[in-house]
């Protein structure tokens, strides 16, 4: 079991979300940074889609009442295990009775904690993810609270003997480039004025505090204006995470994992699949930039992301077979 001693701002159980439920009006949900969630799972020998904890902005304290293997990915919270620092994007063993403390995240927004065997909550509509708006999935359909206890699933016995190991994050979140996301022009792109196009691509867009897992409300120096006679009310249609819609106020909203399945606002663009994880790490108050990209570039970016995951798979497979007992990167960082 994991005892939640301090739940922090918003901690929920999340896997990679629900499939084939959108036609019922149910959001896909799942980790807002699916890449960090997948890597966390791989580090501890889980299916990529196992349930993890999504911890928002850190400041969370967990006590383990059983020995297990865990990994932390996503935003770095300078965590420690009974006072001994542990790294982000690493896996490490936790002994029964030890306490893991996450401090407030310095860069990035969401940290993922995986445990070997996964967080054991019942599956609802094919996923263990918490749907906060609809109140189902995860632990009783809600965010974790101080004093909650979570069961751990059945772990692969081989994971008991693996060594601690770290992997390269997809990008350091302190890097200013972390805030640039690639966007494909949306179906209603041409309904906006030329001045608006320029403003959209060139201006910084601030993530306002009125943002959550459903979407980021952005604020820019000038509202995005439509050409005359172009309606701001479309017939309701399917939307998905990454879609940037423009309500009558002209201040755009980027839809995220828990967004409604249908919408009626014009869509100026869509963040490419490979960059959705970057959105998940954009903090409230931080600034996003949009870069125009082509469908071919979007596919290449996705292939690159799959190559990154494949490299991690291969490195872990080699390591756990004993071929690379002490990888150089581990040796260097240990001596620092």
């Amino acid at each position, binding site marked *: 079991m994991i005892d939640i001693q301090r739940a922090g701002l918003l901690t929920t159980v999340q896997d990679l979300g629900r*499939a084939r439920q959108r036609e019922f*009006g*149910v959001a896909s949900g799942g980790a807002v940074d699916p890449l960090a969630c997948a890597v966390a799972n791989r580090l501890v020998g889980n299916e990529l889609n196992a349930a993890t904890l999504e911890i928002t902005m850190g400041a969370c304290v967990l006590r383990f009442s059983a020995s297990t293997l865990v990994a932390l990915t996503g935003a770095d919270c300078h965590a420690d295990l009974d006072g001994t620092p542990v790294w982000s994007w690493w896996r490490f063993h936790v002994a029964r009775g030890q306490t893991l403390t996450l401090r407030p995240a310095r860069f990035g927004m969401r940290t993922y904690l995986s445990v070997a065997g996964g967080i054991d909550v019942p599956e609802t509509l094919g996923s263990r993810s918490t749907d906060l708006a609809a109140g189902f999935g995860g632990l009783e359909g809600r965010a974790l609270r101080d004093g909650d206890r979570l069961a751990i699933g059945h772990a692969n016995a081989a994971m008991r003997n693996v060594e601690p190991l770290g992997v390269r994050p997809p990008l350091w979140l302190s890097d200013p480039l972390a805030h640039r996301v690639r966007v494909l022009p949306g179906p209603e792109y041409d309904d906006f004025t030329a001045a608006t196009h320029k403003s959209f691509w060139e201006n910084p867009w601030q993530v306002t505090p009125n943002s959550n897992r459903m979407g980021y409300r952005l604020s820019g120096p000038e509202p995005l204006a439509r050409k005359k006679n172009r309606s701001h009310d479309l017939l*309701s*249609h399917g939307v998905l995470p990454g879609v940037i819609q423009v309500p009558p106020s002209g201040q755009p909203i980027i839809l995220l994992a828990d967004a409604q399945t249908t919408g009626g606002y014009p869509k100026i663009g869509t963040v490419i699949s490979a960059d959705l994880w970057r959105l998940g790490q954009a903090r409230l108050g931080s600034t996003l930039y949009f870069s125009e990209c082509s469908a071919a570039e979007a*596919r290449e970016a996705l292939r690159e992301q799959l190559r990154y995951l494949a490299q991690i798979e291969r490195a872990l497979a080699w390591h756990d077979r004993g071929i690379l007992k002490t990888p150089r990167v581990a040796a260097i960082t240990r001596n620092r």
Partner: protein
Amino acid sequence: MTTLKILPLGDSALVCEAGTTPTLATQRRVWHVAALARTWPDVREVVPGMNNLTLLFDPLATDIEVLGERLRDAWQTQPAAANVGRDIEIPVHYGGQHGPDLVNVAKHARLQPKTVVQRHTAPEYIVYFLGFQPGFAYLGGLDDTIAAPRHADPRLSVPAGSVGIGGNQTGVYPLASPGGWQIIGHTASVLFDPAANPPALLAPGDRVRFTIASLDL
């Protein structure tokens, strides 16, 4: 027959639109094409909207041009049955504490509250598609004379099962949520149950009738 406009939505979805003035005939075609598209192996999700359809696919396994052509071909085929869907009755407690805005709607329509209820229970509504909330059905068929504007300030929380009118639409909130519609009643019917399969009571093509469970004027 309307012509199709097929537009990419990001790298992993297509929106396929059939005109801007929605009709039931076009919607039947949307359901028909949605049913076909669900059987295509590279299509991950099919989301019908109001006279449109969104397909989600794996961008690395799908040729968007080929998928677009397949959609156009499917659009040309005849829907098999004119009447898909079931008949579903939703008993409603109208007015009083269950429907705090029934009086508003009546005033706006210059009708007696009882007449509003009669006109709300008269039609057979058609479920066009689900969206907005889990299990929320967009219904066609509201009598124009009882259409009513949304509240300027949405309520912070409307209970699950609330029956409302917003503009020229009517519907039932499956879950407690903030809401701007005029609430005229409440139903004990469960519109969404995540433990059920399928989780939603209503499906596109269903015919819905609201009946009077009680009337508090």
